[in-house]
Structures are given as C-alpha cells and as structure tokens.
C-alpha cells in the first residue's frame, strides 16, 4: 500500500522523449560554454496550462535534484551553479512556444548558455547563462502548473562540452622536404658539378694551344696571321 501511495503523492508523470543534443547540422552544437538541444515539441502536449522549464545539472549532481524545487529561488539560481546549487532551472516557456507538430524545414532548437548579460546578476536566478565548465551535464524538462510539478522527462545522456587547447601545442616544425625540392636540389647540384668539372678539364687540357687546331677554322680575316714570312725569302732564292 505504501508503495502505491508514493507515486500518487508525487503525481509527476514521466513523458518522453528525453532531451538530446540537436540532430541538425550546426557548427555550434557544442561550444566551450554552450550547447544546443532540440525543442520539446509534442512532449508536453497534454499539459496545456503548464510552464515548461529546463533543469541543468552536472552529471554527478542529478541525484541531489528535487523535482518539487521551485524556479527562481536561491536553491535553483544559475549564479550559484555549481558551487552551492546542484541544478538550476532556466529557459521557461509555455506550450505555445512549442507548437506540435513541428513544421518541416524549421530549425527548432534551444541554445543553452546564450545569455551573457545576466550571468553575474543575482537578481536573475533563471538566467540562461554560459556554462562554467566542460561538464558533463545532464538536462531534463519539467512542466509546472503554478508551482506544482506535473510532468517531466528523463535525464538526458551526459553532454560534454568542448575543451580548448593552448596554441603552443600546435606543432610548427617543418614537415620535411617535398619531393620537388629534393629533385631540384639534386639535379641542379649534379649539373653544376658537371659544368665545373668540364670547365676544369677544358682549361687544363686546352688551356695552352694543345687542342683542336685542325677541327675548326677561324673566319677568313684571321688566316692572315698564319702567313709565314720565310716564304718571301725563299721565292727570290728559287727564282735565281
């Protein structure tokens, strides 16, 4: 009997599906301090009068959350999360904001962590402020009629946010030399070496007048230099 009484006393109906990161292709599904959920369309369609709240908690703090805690109280204030508050409540909306069914083609998401202006403002305990660390976090939706909770979803799977590395961890060492550069260097070095060797050979063997005199003849005007003067003396001798 006692067991039957307990659920009746609570009166909170569990509805599904549980919240999840959006399936839309968005670059910012998770960032370092925000994440994006799908809106709870059609989840609370039987509770037309309720106000739907989002409860955000650290993975290790979900057992401390009491569904009868009220939003906007110090026990659920965002500004004290996670030091003294194990779960905060934010992003309240009536069912009108989540019409069912969702029109095809619309992007219906909730960005958790988008309000930066009230992050330190204690007078706004239901602020949707940026999350203070990488998590992992778990969320659930809670429907309240007045201050009485009437329906809730199950806790989501743990959501871990991105952690940024320091730029000094980027390796900037040279990636080695490409094939093209090695080819250029090798081939040009060989060509230069051959040329220098040929130059040395050319100067050593042909530096003095020791090669090629019969191979090429110079242009006509130069042959005058080869004229042997002793012919002049011979001719008069032969005539006599």
């Amino acid at each position, binding site marked *: 009997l006692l067991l039957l009484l307990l659920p009746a006393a609570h009166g909170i109906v569990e509805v599904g599906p549980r919240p999840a990161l959006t399936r839309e292709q968005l670059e910012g599904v998770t960032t370092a301090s925000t994440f994006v959920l799908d809106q709870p369309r059609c989840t609370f369609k039987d509770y037309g009068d309720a106000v739907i709240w989002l409860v955000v908690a650290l993975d290790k703090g979900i057992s401390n959350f009491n569904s009868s805690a009220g939003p906007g109280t110090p026990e659920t204030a965002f500004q004290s999360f996670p030091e003294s508050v194990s779960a905060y409540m934010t992003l309240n909306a009536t069912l009108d904001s989540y019409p069912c069914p969702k029109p095809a083609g619309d992007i219906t998401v909730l960005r958790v962590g988008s309000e930066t202006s009230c992050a330190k403002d204690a007078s706004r305990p239901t602020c949707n402020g940026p999350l203070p660390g990488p998590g992992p976090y778990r969320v659930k939706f809670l429907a309240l009629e007045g201050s009485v909770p009437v329906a809730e979803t199950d806790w989501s799977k743990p959501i871990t946010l991105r952690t940024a590395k320091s730029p000094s961890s980027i390796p900037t060492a040279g990636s080695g030399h490409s094939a093209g550069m090695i080819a250029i260097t090798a081939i040009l070095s060989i060509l230069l070496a051959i040329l220098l060797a040929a130059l040395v050979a050319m100067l050593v063997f042909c530096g003095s007048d020791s090669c090629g005199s019969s191979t090429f003849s*110079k242009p006509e005007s130069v042959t005058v230099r080869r004229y042997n003067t002793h012919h002049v003396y011979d001719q008069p001798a032969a005539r006599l």
Partner: protein
Amino acid sequence: MAKSDDCVHILQGLLVFGNVVIGMCGIALTAECIYVVSNPHGAYPLLKATENSDIHAAAWIGIFVGLALFALAILGIIGVIKASRTLLLAYIILMLITFAFEMASSITAATHQDSQTPNVLLKQMLERYQKSDPNNNSDNEVTKTWDELMRQNHCCGVNGPSDWQEYTSAFRDTHSDADYPWPRACCVLDAKGLPVNLDGCKLGVSGYYNSNGCYDAMSGPVNTHAWGVAWFGFAILCWTFCVLLGTMFYWSGIEY
C-alpha cells in the same frame, strides 16, 4: 674540310640559337620575378609577420639573374660568331656564377612551399588576431589583414571556424565563447557589414556563417608564385647547362 666547316657552322648556329633562347628566358624570368615582388596580394602582411619571406628573396635574386642572363647571352652570341677564346672564356665563367645564383633562387623558392604549412599561420592567427595591445603595430596589421581576408574570401580561420573552438586564443581572452564562438567577420555580412542573422551565425547554421577555412585562399596565390619561380628557374638552368657544355666544346676547338 668542307664537312668540318659545315659542322662548325651547325655548332655555331646551335650555340647562337641557344643563347637567343637564354636571353629571352632571362627577360621572362625578370618579368616574372618583378611581378612576384610587386604583386600586392592580400596575405603579404601575414607572411611578413611569420618571417617567412623566402619567396621574396628568391624573386629578388631572380630579377638580377634574369638581367644577367640577357647580357651574357648577347656576350655569348658575339663570342661565338667571332670565335674569340677570351670572350667565350669570360662568358663561360660568368655564366657559371649566374648559374649558381639562379640555383640558389630556385631552391629557396622550392623550400618556401615546404615551410608554409597551415600550422604556422594558425598559430600566428590564434596568438595575434584581436590581441588588444594598441602599441603593437604589427598585431593590428595582422588583425586588419585577417578581417579583410575573411570578409573578401568568405572564409573563417585557417582550417575553419572550429579553429576558434579547438584552441584558446588572444581573441578568446577578450570575447566570450557564448557571444562570439567565432569572430563576427566569419558571419555572412550584409551590405552594411552587419551579420545577416546573428543567432544563425552563432549557432552555426549553414548559410549564415562561413564554414570553410582561409588557408586555400591565402596560400594559393603565393604557392603559385613560388612554383613559378622555382620551376621556371630550373628549366632555364637545364637549358643553360646544355648551351654551356656546347660552348665549352666549341671553345676547346677554336684555333689559337
């Protein structure tokens, strides 16, 4: 003798032709290197900031080598026609010196391509973009250049907007992650320079933000220039090698 006369004339003709080609290629090399040096492509301040201006050193050497090649080609033509040993010896030695310089330029340009990895630019961008130090002029240059680059080429970061999420940065120190997952310049902007849909941009809805990285837009023109200087120089040198060998053979056959 007639046969070897023909051989001589053929060899002379080939050498003159070879030198004409070298002269023209020298002019072309000078023109190409002047273009590379003076081309105001947008990414130059970033290259200057990374102290990686090998390509400019290579291009400057290329300008003077090109002019030298042209002058030496004329000297070579005169030397071949006159069959003068001294002229041709001077030609060969000066050509070898020019060959060495052009070799240096070509290898430098080829090395530049290897050292220009995205990581160097990524690190520079993360450390200096929007670094709020009003005294440091070169940081402001980096910021202005990146903003212009991202707006004109519709790109974001080096590899993509995820650069700003994966690493901490000088930008992240002054701009909160929730308000600025990536800089506003990564959003699709309207004619006034304001984001078309700021929430869409912050969420990363395609169509409202630039999803591709800027590395291709930046490195593309610079790498083409480096490629041009390196391989054109290499081609000229191969041709010069043949002409020089021919000239040396011709020189050794000239009567004293």
